[in-house]
């Protein structure tokens, strides 16, 4: 049996769940049960996909009976199935966390009847974007997840959320329009929008035209992935959303942009025509992002800036277009999704326990709630890249790939990467020192909740549980870094080779065009 024929279920199951939970909007208990059960089922399915793709290789399925290159295909390869599994783990943990928060609060803040269907549609959009092998279907996947994210971002319709939501919606719509223009021009130039077919036909397009199409796609995805200088919307809009929503946005949405950039760079436009600008942009993203983080006094905003900054690492790995660099980038994406989401979830807990997420108001949390301090400390050190955590391993892989490449620009990026890592440690240490270590009375404006030492009920188990599970998952990425790096290496080789992808979609007789420009070192 072709394993890929199960792949559409990764999109269909969440959408089915959305329909069911929407019908059950008067019964919060049933809503929770349905959405958690269906997401768990999706996760199991995706683990199965990953396991079988690992052994049997890339598989694809045509939808609706239209043969490629005319119909929409879904392609499961190692990279997409890895992204699916990690994203489902994240979304399941966040869903349980949000459910726990809803139960603890008696659902006063968020209108829960809307939350579950919208959240499931977001998950479906993310899965669709990861699985699709068709450029326009990728656009549709983006639109599904973006429209769901608009609703989640403005949940409750309070003043600050509407203000942040406006920026977010306008920027996202503009990026989608850019993407659509790029698709139209690609169709005009080649007459196809199937990605495997494009990989063949774009090789015959005039290099100048190809560069224009390439740059347009990168700009459109760069806005979604929050790459400097297209990143200003992110720290402005993410922090105001409810904690679980911010967590899942931080983990998934920017990474879908990174995923699309990886596909563009490897499948559609291989070679190194735009590698130099990408590297410069990666360096600026890292440095500008982390310098912004240091200036912040609100933990959520600080984390949003570190999110922007660490996107730079992934773009760096991608821009090297060597197996080592791409493998490290794939590993880094998996690591960063997990760690950034756990940190945002922990921040939600900090906000509940301390009554604020501003470092000017917090203090003494380590004494007040040692377990919370532990939950913050582990992913924080992981993010900063302290050995032996996965953040260190991912950065080490990137730096080694950069040194193997050996060009002056790559070496500059290696230095920039180390500096960014140190500055991340500084930013995280500021949070630790202020919110956790100092006495509550040392805070500039101590929050009232800090004096209440008995308020353990503010941290319900249903919220701490998924956070702790996610932290453990992050540590597991460290423990099983060997197999994960092997998987990342395999998927990087496959993506740079392209033959497996194209043959799986267009059949074994398709002739894969060679890469025109020589590839960088590090092979």
């Amino acid at each position, binding site marked *: 049996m072709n394993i890929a024929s199960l792949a559409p279920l990764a999109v269909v199951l969440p959408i089915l769940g959305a329909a069911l939970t929407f019908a059950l909007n008067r019964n919060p208990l049933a809503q929770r049960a349905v959405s958690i059960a269906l997401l768990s089922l999706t996760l199991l399915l995706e683990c199965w996909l990953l396991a079988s793709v690992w052994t049997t290789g890339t598989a694809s399925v045509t939808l609706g009976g239209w043969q490629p290159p005319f119909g929409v295909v879904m392609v499961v390869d190692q990279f997409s199935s890895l992204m699916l599994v990690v994203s489902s783990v994240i979304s399941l943990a966040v869903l349980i966390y949000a459910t726990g928060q809803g139960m603890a609060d008696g659902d006063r803040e968020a209108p829960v009847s809307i939350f579950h269907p919208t959240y499931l549609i977001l998950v479906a959009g993310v899965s669709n974007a990861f699985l699709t092998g068709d450029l326009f279907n990728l656009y*549709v996947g983006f639109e599904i997840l973006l429209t769901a994210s608009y609703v989640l971002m403005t949940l409750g319709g309070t003043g600050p959320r509407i*203000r942040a939501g406006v920026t977010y919606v306008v920027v996202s719509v503009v990026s989608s329009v850019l993407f659509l223009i790029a698709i139209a021009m690609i169709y005009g130039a080649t007459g196809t929008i199937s990605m495997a077919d494009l990989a063949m036909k774009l090789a015959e397009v005039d290099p100048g035209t190809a560069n224009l199409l390439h740059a347009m796609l990168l700009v459109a995805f760069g806005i979604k992935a929050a790459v400097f200088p297209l990143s200003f919307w992110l720290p402005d809009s993410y922090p105001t959303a409810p904690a679980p929503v911010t967590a899942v946005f931080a983990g998934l949405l920017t990474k879908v942009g990174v995923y699309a950039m990886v596909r563009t760079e490897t499948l559609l436009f291989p070679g190194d025509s735009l590698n130099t600008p990408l590297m410069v942009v990666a360096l600026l993203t890292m440095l500008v992002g982390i310098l912004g983080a240091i200036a912040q006094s609100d933990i959520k905003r600080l984390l949003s800036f570190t999110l922007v900054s660490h996107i730079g690492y992934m773009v760096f790995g991608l821009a090297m277009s060597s197996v080592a660099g791409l493998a490290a980038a794939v590993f880094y994406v998996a690591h960063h999704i997990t760690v950034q989401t756990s940190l945002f979830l922990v921040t939600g807990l900090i906000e509940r326990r301390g009554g604020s997420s501003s470092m000017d108001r917090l203090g003494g949390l380590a004494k007040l709630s040692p377990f919370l301090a532990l939950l913050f400390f582990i992913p924080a050190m992981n993010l900063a890249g302290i050995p032996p955590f996965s953040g260190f391993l991912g950065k080490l892989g990137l730096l080694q790939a950069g040194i193997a490449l050996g060009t002056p620009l790559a070496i500059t990026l290696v230095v920039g990467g180390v500096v960014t890592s140190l500055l991340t440690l500084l930013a995280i240490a500021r949070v630790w020192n202020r919110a956790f270590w100092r006495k509550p009375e040392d805070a500039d404006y101590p929050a009232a909740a800090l004096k209440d030492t008995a308020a353990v009920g503010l941290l319900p188990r249903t919220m701490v549980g998924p956070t702790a599970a996610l932290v453990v998952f992050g540590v597991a990425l460290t423990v099983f870094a060997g197999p994960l790096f092997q998987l990342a290496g395999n998927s990087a080789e496959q993506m740079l080779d392209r033959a497996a992808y194209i043959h799986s979609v267009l059949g074994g007789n398709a002739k894969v065009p060679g890469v025109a420009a020589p590839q960088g070192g590090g092979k």
Partner: protein
Amino acid sequence: MSVNLTLLIVMGVLYACGIYLILERSLTRVLLGLMLLANATNLLILATGGYAGLAPLFTKSTDPRDFNDPLPQALILTSIVISFAVTAFMLGIIYRTWALARQDDIQDDVEDRRVAKTPSFDAEDDSVVPEETSEFPVTALTEAAKEGGPL
């Protein structure tokens, strides 16, 4: 590939007006700009389909080259539906902004402005460390003894 010049000119004008409008600060104008951009893009997709032809309903006697390219029209249909949904949502947000703040403008991020105004000197981070060289200061010990706590 032949194209329709009128459609191209209309598309250009729509793009120009759309870009001009999304640079405004008023939300309603931004929304109008986005709508114009979406429609201009639909025209662009239509133009990629090439010359106008017969409706793509298969008949054996017709030469395949006489048919219109159906794919761009399918894409446009999807894109119209999407932009319709987004426009409706934006209208909802604009109405909500009006209900909350009684204004139609995009508002500043307060926290961003506050951070930008923060002086580089931070009283807590940068002030001189008070002179206390001992790891276990005497004052703390005596205070602990006064409270009857463990030394």
